[in-house]
């Protein structure tokens, strides 16, 4: 059955997303060197996961094939980014 989630949970997720946005904006003023982009992207990934899991109902999908589609999508994106970057980064090694 289609899972109906409470409005309360949606407001909680919204509040978390707003807090994380404020946090990442504030942290951009702190110079952490090479860690700065890592922190910004980790926060973005937490926010993105909240959106996909709760707002997009990925956590509540009952059709297994749909879960496979979603996981495959992000898996291929990882291949695209990771494999290409291993090429660029190792070009100067020779």
């Amino acid at each position: 059955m289609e899972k109906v989630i409470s409005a309360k949970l949606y407001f909680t997720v919204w509040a978390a997303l707003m807090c994380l946005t404020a946090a990442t904006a504030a942290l951009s003023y702190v110079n952490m060197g090479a860690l700065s982009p890592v922190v910004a992207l980790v926060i973005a990934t937490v926010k993105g996961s909240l959106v996909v899991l709760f707002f997009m109902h990925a956590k509540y999908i009952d059709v297994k094939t749909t879960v496979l589609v979603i996981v495959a999508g992000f898996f291929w994106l990882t291949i695209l980014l990771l494999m290409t970057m291993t090429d660029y980064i190792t070009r100067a090694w020779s």
Partner: protein
Amino acid sequence: MSDSSEALATHELRHHFENMEQQRGASSMGMWVFLVTEIMFFGGMFMAYLAYRYEYFVAWQEGSQHMNFWIGTVNTAVLICSSLTMVLAVLAIQQGRRRLTSVMLAVTICFAMAFMVLKGMEYHEHWLAHEFPGSAFHFAGIDPRHVEMFFVLYFVMTGFHALHVLIGIGLVSTMLYMNERGHFSADYHNPIENTGLYWHFVDLIWIYLYPLLYLIGHHHVS
């Protein structure tokens, strides 16, 4: 389930599905397959951003100094709020509350338009500062050629994102119209659910564009 909604549910069930549940599952999966192609579409641009940032790091730092941090941050908040109202519209129709659904869809459209207005102001600012790539592009600092490349990717990525916001406004408006015409109920609302998926996906893209363009190296040059 009331008699009228049962009749509507039967009416909305396409003949090649066993029941409403199967139809809903198939509809949702179809939307996700489409969204995966969208991930690949934006993925290529994120890949280009990453490769160029790696090769021309200094130019990337320079370029990100010229982003409007406050418009970017406010727009992030605006999109997150629009995602909340969108998901509340889906919840309202799941509960069969048509009136509330229409209100939430209308608020979502307002947030989306606010985003577009702010984005337009930002583009206008860049245009006046000669930061739009092309013959009028002018940059006084170091490595202007690759700073221009940063702006190419900025305009292409945010431009395609803005196009998706516009399409989203069109879809949500269509849902509002159909809902007012009484097309949806607690038993049948797949189009609203799928429009929601599309809208949250647009939000998801912005969640990554925001740190990559506005935050990384904005306040400090290493």
